[in-house]
């Protein structure tokens, strides 16, 4: 099968790779770019741990054809840190004990960031809706919701 050249911005940096036709974005990010922060959970769009942002919008990278991001901007958890400092959401997750096994955390953080980017002061219900595509198997939804609300309420700074 012939390879398809692919160019896009990955966390603000131009990248160019060759992918097989049909490769999904999750595999492209993890195996070709080496960004292991989006996780493989179910590969069917059912768990949300592979969530990334494409041109500022939340997407499931496992259901996104890699070819479709040509010329676009992809943000992952890897680009969330601000230099040596944690992003306020990451800080809040740590302070609120919002991770146990941590496998859902990358997707939860991306979903939270997508929400706060378009709605800086969401209600509790809006936070719940924003993360309702993400499964937490340790069922720590309560601390996750509290962490996001803490950032929205301006109670956390990195």
């Amino acid at each position, binding site marked *: 099968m012939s390879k398809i050249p692919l160019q896009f911005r990955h966390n603000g940096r131009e990248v160019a790779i060759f992918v097989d036709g049909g490769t999904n974005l999750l595999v492209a990010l993890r195996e070709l770019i080496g960004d292991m922060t989006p996780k493989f*959970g*179910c590969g*069917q769009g*059912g*768990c949300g741990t592979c969530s990334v942002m494409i041109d500022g919008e939340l997407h499931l990278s496992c259901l996104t054809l890699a070819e479709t991001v040509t010329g676009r901007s992809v943000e992952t958890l890897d680009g969330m840190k601000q230099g040596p400092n944690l992003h306020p959401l990451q800080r809040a997750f740590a302070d609120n*004990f919002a*991770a*146990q*096994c*941590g496998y859902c955390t990358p997707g939860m953080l991306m979903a939270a960031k997508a929400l706060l980017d378009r709605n800086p002061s969401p209600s509790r219900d809006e*936070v*719940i*809706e924003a*993360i*309702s595509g*993400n*499964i*937490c*198997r*340790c*069922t*720590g*939804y*309560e*601390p*996750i*919701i509290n962490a996001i609300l803490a950032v929205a309420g301006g109670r956390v700074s990195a």
Partner: protein
Amino acid sequence: MTRHRGRGMASINYPIGMNLGGDPSQALVHSNPSGKFTVALSSIDLGQGMKSVTRQICAETLGVPVEDVYVDTADSDTGPHCMGSFASRGTHRVGNAVMAAAREARGVMMEAAAEELEVNAADLETDGRGNIHVKGAPHRSISTKDVAIAAQFKQGRTISGRGIFLVPLSEVNPETGEMSPATCYAHACLVAEVDVDDETGEVAMIRMDSAYELGRALNPRLVEQQLVGGAWMGVSHALYETPEPYYPEPVHGPRDFVEYLMPGPGDICPHDIAVLERPAPDGPFGAKGPGEMCANPVLPAVANAIFNAVGVRIDDLPITPEKVLRAIKAQGGARPQARR
């Protein structure tokens, strides 16, 4: 259609660990020439916080700052043997092994310090900040780092310790059949409040109130985190999860996360938790550990709450809307019980 509010409670005794094969776990502790300590385990931390808790136990036993201890675990090729992270045994079993190993390592550390300070090891104490000094004479002091360097490069001594926890085999009393399968028990009580819809059979969680007695909480934030999350695993067992909804018929089994039901962020309800600490005599610093007990009282409490709400007694898990509805139909309608 009516939604019926119901309240149910359950109390449990929960044995920590198990007795089969003695339930052993081992730990090795050694100092590095930098004066920091490594705990070698093969026990798995899958998010429950075992690395944090064993680190605390080791630091406290050695008398050094927690920052000076590193826990290296999860590789059964290189770590000493562990039965595993299950049966709520991590904090208690592995913790005890770490404590024994750290105690032995501390003995060597004090001997090495005594040689450097030219005093008797029995006259020395640690300050918990990385120094060892003569009791009552804090100026006669040496840092753990200097002790480690002296042991390594001058005295030719390994500051290290071995620890194992093993439950003595419990013999069955031939007269009574009695035996002691567990060494310590944790306890919990949980009250669940639910709404049951008598038209759809759906059960919604309204609130939970619980009290857990789990020995000393070595890391209260981690204990709380486990209790919060674990209760929802209990709800999930009670109301949602099964790979075989019509067991023993394998039909209609879920094939993915869309069909396999679990609580989502929209299903959670307020949960008030009280942690009671009654130190266990044989636990590391009195700890038993929360473990699986987080989920256990929820199942009977929810089943009781459903009975209280609509008068049907479902003894088959999970309590799906279909089962609730069939049971309500069979008894000719919802029969709310007295509220207590």
